[in-house]
């Protein structure tokens, strides 16, 4: 078993990599087709597979259909390698680079969560994510900086998301009202009055900022982690958020070690 679980210190990183690789496979292939998820409707399931439609390539980077099909296959093999921890560094790079090249075939196909998938795959390839929970384990080269980089990356997503909202109209009620009117919040549309929209917007920005900061400190990590998972679960239920909640849940696993380690290391309370 030790031959798969690897370095105990880096198990959170290995676990996050495996989960993230799995989400990458599920989001870019037709594996979930029997469950009819929204993101697979009207497609053959292979994200970006040549389809004969009109596409607007980014920077004129139009590749022949055969090459795109090959890239989709490489991306899938890379994602599988990332999930299983098999030649992880090459697999993550191949999945990320092939993913970006396929994404570049249609400027209108860009979404934040796809950028997150491919950037995440590349980052997992560059850190010591293959030192634990991997079929092919490799000795860690820089375990501390690997874990710090991935944690900073995840925390920064929350902070940037909050900054983006602060720089926009969040807090006025206009943002949620716009999403409500576009039909993206149908399950709770009836509850979203103007005043409530403004209050919810302020709460979401505050929670995102608190999660981003809270994840970086050991003392607040547990509550930040729980809050983040609860927030993503809520978004998953009430809004059309594609796979972003699952991606974030996978990434959040990089914070799990501290939670368990802290609770083990905490000195016992002395009762007088």
């Amino acid at each position, binding site marked *: 078993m030790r031959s798969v679980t690897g370095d105990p210190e880096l198990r959170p990183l290995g676990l996050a990599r495996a989960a993230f690789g799995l989400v990458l496979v599920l989001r870019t292939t037709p594996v979930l087709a029997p469950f009819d998820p929204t993101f697979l409707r009207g497609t053959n399931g292979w994200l970006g597979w040549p389809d004969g439609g*009109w596409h607007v390539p980014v920077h004129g980077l139009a590749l022949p259909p055969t090459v795109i099909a090959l890239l989709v296959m490489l991306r899938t093999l890379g994602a599988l390698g990332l999930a299983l921890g098999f030649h992880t560094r090459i697999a993550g790079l191949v999945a990320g680079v092939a993913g970006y090249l396929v994404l570049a075939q249609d400027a*209108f*196909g860009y979404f934040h969560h796809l950028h*997150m998938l491919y950037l995440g795959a590349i980052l997992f390839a560059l850190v010591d994510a293959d030192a634990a929970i991997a079929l092919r384990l490799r000795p860690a080269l820089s375990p501390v900086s690997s874990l710090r980089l991935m944690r900073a990356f995840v925390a920064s997503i929350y902070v940037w*998301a909050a900054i983006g909202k602060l720089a926009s*109209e969040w807090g006025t009620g206009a943002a949620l009202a*716009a999403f409500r009117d576009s039909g993206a919040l149908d399950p709770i549309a009836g509850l979203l009055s103007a005043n409530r929209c403004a209050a919810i917007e302020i709460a979401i920005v505050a929670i995102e900022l608190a999660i981003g900061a809270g994840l970086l400190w050991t003392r607040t990590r547990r509550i930040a982690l729980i809050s983040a998972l609860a927030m993503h679960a809520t978004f998953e239920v009430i809004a059309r958020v594609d796979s972003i909640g699952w991606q974030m849940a996978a990434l959040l696993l990089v914070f799990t070690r501290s939670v368990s380690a802290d609770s083990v290391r905490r000195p016992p309370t002395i009762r007088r």
Partner: protein
Amino acid sequence: MGVVVVLLLPLVSWLDGSGQLAWTMFARTGQYRLELVGDSAPINPTEIAAAATPGPTSQALAGADHFKHHDVARATRRRHLADVVRLACKLRHAKVVTGRLEERVRSYETIRASEVTVQCDR
């Protein structure tokens, strides 16, 4: 590496106005509307969408004759307005097609318009 991923990439995308690499998902309230005219006759973007199907281009163009709320699509459409107009050229076989994009980044801002005219290849 950390500085590039955590700071530089998001900052650069803030500077280009799109925020596409700055994790601005669901943050912005940008709206857009597209008008296309080929040889003085209006072309409904939904017609282009129908011809472009399948794929994300068709989804982005469908219903774009009315204001739509999608900031990433707004920013992408402005950046690739000439490409969209060329798609219209293919559909209508017109000599000249003009695309006019009306947009606002925030709901209270005045509408900005940008226009591109393309001489279609015959």
